[in-house]
């Protein structure tokens, strides 16, 4: 077994290019990361009723997310125990039973094997149905609507796993009394590039925005010159526990379209009633974060997208992205924020298009037999982070790469575990 820990150099703050291109590393990640970390499954609002299901992936493995007959949220591998065919082939729906299209084995929403064609004549009643239920993902927990699952029975709880990052996540999830719901439909698209390039960027790379995303600013879609809020106070990046990272900066109110400004004002008021003051003070801003390994969230002006960067080989990712909105948001706000999402962060997003294009080139160039010997630089801000009393994590105002490197420090730790 290879030692991957030397690929992240803790002293020099560098990452070896192999981390982003090597098939052996990719394969090891499936077990060491996707087999052990908490992975995002879906939003509770996607399965409000008993029998409601959604199909998705944990890493490369297709899974079914279902609310069973006693309202319990469960996650199963979407694979028949007999020959492995998918027992559910729709994106979402409602059912009492998942039936394999191949030989007809069928399973209830608790995963139990219910029906086996010819069980008497062909199996002579020898088949112990109790032993052949769907393979269940043992841990399923949720945090204010977001449901995560984990293959590792020994893993810490989701709450422990989120750790200090929950403070920031809650700025979006808990800013209103009714909480959030996810809006209908999933943006699904393929992008060239290693899946970690997207995750690390959302964990704390605000540095790229001025250069890569210059075009939206040039056409008047952003402030000409970012005036910002107060460094350390409203404008900061946070390296949190377990490789999670957060970017936060204030949006000047004069730059906000009036309808959204009004909505944000109302949310700020509501937040003061439901969140502690130090969190309520941070509601109105641009907020971006990653939960290790491959879930990210991004929001501003009331619009929020949550997404998973599914690994599809070392050089490709498949993005699944959804919209989040307050349960009680008026329909016109749901529409405005939905259209913002389509314009900015979507398969056609005027920000997101350019991210995809550079991520693809990174994995192309790093594969070169010469380039691969030269490490990547993650030194920005190293040693200059601070811990503050009013918010968790190791902090530094944008730009810094403390959080991005923190993501790789945790990658190193997970990849080094036996």
């Amino acid at each position, binding site marked *: 077994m290879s030692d991957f820990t030397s690929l992240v150099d803790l002293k020099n703050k560098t990452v070896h290019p192999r981390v982003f291109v090597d098939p052996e590393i990719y394969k090891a990640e499936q077990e060491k990361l996707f087999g052990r970390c908490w992975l995002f499954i879906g939003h509770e609002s996607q399965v409000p009723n008993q029998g409601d299901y959604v199909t998705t992936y944990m890493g490369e493995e297709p899974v079914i997310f279902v609310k069973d007959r006693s309202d319990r949220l469960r996650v199963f591998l979407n694979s028949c125990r007999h020959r492995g065919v998918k027992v559910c*082939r*729709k*994106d*979402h*729906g409602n059912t009492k039973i998942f039936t394999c299209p191949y030989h007809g084995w069928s399973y209830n929403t608790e995963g139990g094997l219910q029906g086996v064609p010819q069980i008497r004549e062909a199996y002579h009643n020898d088949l112990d149905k109790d032993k052949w239920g769907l393979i269940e993902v043992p841990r399923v927990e949720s945090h204010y609507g977001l449901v995560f699952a984990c293959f590792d029975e020994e893993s810490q709880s989701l709450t422990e796993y989120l750790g200090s990052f929950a403070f920031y996540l809650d700025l979006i999830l808990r800013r209103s009394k009714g909480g959030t719901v996810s*809006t*209908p*439909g*999933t*943006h*699904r*698209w*393929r*992008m060239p590039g290693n899946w970690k390039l997207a995750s690390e960027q959302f964990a704390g790379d605000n540095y790229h925005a001025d250069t*890569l995303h*210059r*075009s*939206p600013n*040039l*056409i008047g*879609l952003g402030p000409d010159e970012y005036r910002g809020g107060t460094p350390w106070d409203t404008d900061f990046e946070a390296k949190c526990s377990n490789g999670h990272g957060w970017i936060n900066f204030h949006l000047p109110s004069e730059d906000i379209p009036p309808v959204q400004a009004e909505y944000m004002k109302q949310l700020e008021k509501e937040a003061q009633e439901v969140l502690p003051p130090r969190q309520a003070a941070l509601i109105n801003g641009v907020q971006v974060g990653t939960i290790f390994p491959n879930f990210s969230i991004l929001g501003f002006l009331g619009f929020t997208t949550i997404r998973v960067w599914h690994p599809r080989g070392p050089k490709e990712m*498949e993005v699944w992205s*959804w*919209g989040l909105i307050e349960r009680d948001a008026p*329909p016109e706000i*749901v*529409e405005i924020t*939905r*259209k913002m*999402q*389509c*314009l900015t962060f*979507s*398969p*056609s997003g*005027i920000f*997101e*298009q*350019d991210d*995809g*294009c*550079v991520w693809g080139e990174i994995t192309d160039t790093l594969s070169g037999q010469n380039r691969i010997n030269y490490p990547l630089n993650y030194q920005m801000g190293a040693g200059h982070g601070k811990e503050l009393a009013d918010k968790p994590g190791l902090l530094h105002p944008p730009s810094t790469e403390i959080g991005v490197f923190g993501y790789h420090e945790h990658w190193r730790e997970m990849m080094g575990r036996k």
Partner: protein
Amino acid sequence: MNSFDLRQEFEEFFIKEAWLLDNDKYDEWLDLFDDDTRYWAPVRENLDRGNENFAKPHLLSHFDDNKMTLGFRVKRLATGYAHAEEPPSRTRHFVSNVQILEKETDRVRVESNFIVFRGRPGKDETFFVGVRRDWWRKDPTGWINEERMVIFDHDVIESITIFF
């Protein structure tokens, strides 16, 4: 004008429209759209037969623009910093199967299939396939688009950096 003539007129019209898109005439292409146009592409869902519903409230769309936001996309290409389109893609739009779906006094609903090729530097080649359902209004200046719904036949799609 009878339906046959109208169909023929739109076949020719779509050939000219495709030419604009394939020859970098984005401003002229944009002129075809009404201020309140809706240029959108609802996401596809894999559901029971007949259950897919593009009219579902708040359903995500790959893009959902009016003329102003479509204009942002066009202007962005000219900045030189739209990196996903630098250097520009080579596109070829093939439009066929034109059908007149509905006819009103000065409005017409037209459907057309498309195959669009996009070539990027290196062997980065993509085909986009689908159908467009449009509403066009007859103006003194010509046909003005009031709505274009682009229905891709893709489920998991590639990054959309071009127009349809």
